[in-house]
């Protein structure tokens, strides 16, 4: 990992309008991403975790401009991605790729694996003809498949193999940054491990940088250098992966960690069972968005919005009482 900041996200927001009635009057907004900021160094893996609806996937897509942001800035290698024109965007997209969650629906069933990967090469004018074929074979080998697989169609592969194809496709254009959106959650346990190891190997070999979006904290901890926990469109805690799991400084992270069933029957953990559901991002609670479910909420929490602050060097928390969790 170098000290150079590759990706810098500043106060990123994405509000989806809720429209009603004949004239599609805007009656409110779903604040899917509501002020997210973080820096990512070259060669680093940042995990983005949270429960469904917390905005982790939207954050990933807004960074790539697959969805246009409402406001905020995204700097990639020093350039503001959100301000780029069409042709500049295409050029920069070569450096930023995505791997999708569902290997069943993210591959075109009518294209052979070879033509799918070659398409990316053609669009970015990287290779053609025999050279492109050579590159496809090289990529397939890189992700643990065989060159002859290029002639096959997606339905001929299992879930794990399809995810390998998805990775090969993302790698075709030689990217620097890969946003992996739940890349293993649709896979069987024994196959998950294969893909996680593959992603790790590729990172080391090709010097890649990842934003790893997932809901499974154990998976995220395994692969990430730093982890950002999201709740209702905001980052509530951001720290080095080890520090976050060893001593969480936000009650939500603490509850989330304790809720994970541990595959060791002898170890009975003290579980914090949160009451209630995640509130709708269309009507977030006042003050701290987590306060209605928080086990240590006080009057201040329902009125004052906590900001993400550095409670320890490199450890950020958006809780008024983060210090009380130290050593707890």
């Amino acid at each position, binding site marked *: 990992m170098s000290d150079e900041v590759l990706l810098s996200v500043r106060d990123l927001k994405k509000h989806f309008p809720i429209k009603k009635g004949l004239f599609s009057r805007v009656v409110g907004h779903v604040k899917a991403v509501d002020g997210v900021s973080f820096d990512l160094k070259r060669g680093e893996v940042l995990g983005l975790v949270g429960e469904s609806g917390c905005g982790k996937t939207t954050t990933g897509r807004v960074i790539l401009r697959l969805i246009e942001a409402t406001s905020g800035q995204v700097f990639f290698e020093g350039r503001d991605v959100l301000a780029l024109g069409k042709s500049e965007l295409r050029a920069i997209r070569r450096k930023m790729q995505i791997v999708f969650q569902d290997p069943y629906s993210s591959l075109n069933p009518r294209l052979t694996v070879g033509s799918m990967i070659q398409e990316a090469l053609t669009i970015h004018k990287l290779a053609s003809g025999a050279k492109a074929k050579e590159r496809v074979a090289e990529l397939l080998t890189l992700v643990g498949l065989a060159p002859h697989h290029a002639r096959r169609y997606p339905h001929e592969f299992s879930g794990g193999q399809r995810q390998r194809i998805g990775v090969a496709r993302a790698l075709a254009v030689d990217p620097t940054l890969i946003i992996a959106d739940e890349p293993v959650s649709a896979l069987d346990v024994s196959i998950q491990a294969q893909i996680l190891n593959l992603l790790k190997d590729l990172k080391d070999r090709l010097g890649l940088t990842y934003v790893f979006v997932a809901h499974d904290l154990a998976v995220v901890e*395994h692969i990430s250098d730093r982890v950002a926990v999201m709740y209702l469109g905001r980052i509530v805690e951001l720290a080095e992966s080890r520090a976050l799991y060893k001593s969480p400084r936000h009650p939500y992270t603490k509850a989330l960690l304790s809720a994970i069933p*541990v595959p060791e029957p002898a170890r009975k953990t003290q579980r914090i069972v*949160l009451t209630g559901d995640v509130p709708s991002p269309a009507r977030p609670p006042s003050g701290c968005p987590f306060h209605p479910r928080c086990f240590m909420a006080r009057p201040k929490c329902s009125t004052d919005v906590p900001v993400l602050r550095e409670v320890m060097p490199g450890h950020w928390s958006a809780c008024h009482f983060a210090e009380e969790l130290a050593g707890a």
Partner: protein
Amino acid sequence: MAEANVLEVRNLQTHFVTDDGTLKAVDGVSFAVGPGETLGIVGESGCGKSVTSLSILRLIPSPPGRIVGGEILFKGTNLLKLSDPEMRKIRGNDISMIFQEPMTSLNPVYTCGDQIMEAVMLHQKVGRAEARTRAIEMLRLVGIPSPEQRVDEYPHQLSGGMRQRVMIAMALSCQPEVLIADEPTTALDVTIQAQILELLNRLQREMGMAILLITHDLGVVAETCDRVAVMYAGHVVEYAGVDDIFARPRMPYTVGLLGSIPKLGEEKERLRVIPGNVPNPSEFPAGCKFHPRCPVAIDRCKVENPPLVPIRPGHDVRCWRAGEAEAGTLDMGRAFEEVVS
């Protein structure tokens, strides 16, 4: 213990006849569960765990599916011998089931209350008013706030966790003796999963029913089950108490599976990997079904399928080399570490 089992499955075989030949989705599965006990059935996609649970309630669509052999004994009665009307009396009443996806398994055009009341009125021979009271009571029991109001709401008005609670309320409304829970928390977020597991646990203590928990999540198994049956390719490959399975697994598949899950707080460069892919039922290999992916397979494994035999009291394993692992002359875990992924 044998006579105390509420549900006993013996040598169950469920096959599907397709154009590509007969698929032996479940091929000789046996297990038993006693009152107040939770048995976990663990496995990956296509291992036959869901087909097993559907077979117990005789919900396998036929054709193409058919239960070709075995016995399913509910308190000594073989369910496979019952007529359809007799089976309907048991289904939802003595044995009930909750499914993975609460949105698709609830009927969207009926209120939650109506759906619970239907089961109660059918099985318990009570009137509408009484059934409604019961439905409200059940909703309260599963922890739904203001049940008097929720009883008249439709499934789409509830969140995922609440819908799963309605499913549980429906399944438990007739106080079944066996509850089959097929991946009950897979579609839910972890904080909601914790709530649902806690709820099932509490209800089991209060009502004393037996639970058959079908899941792929070994964490859930460790926290909720008393005994575990690990399934692979239509067979039970290891069957033991939960502590035994996690501390002393003796079937290479179980060993590999346990090693391949990332654990919180564990520093590990690489995960242990089971090579290859989960086999499709149409292409189950000969011999031991796991041998193509097994790092300790020997020639015998390729031709002869090992039987499920006890290696210790209460711990059955289907592996030719389990004895060596038990004696300490074979380290299955290390064999997986040496696999190059």
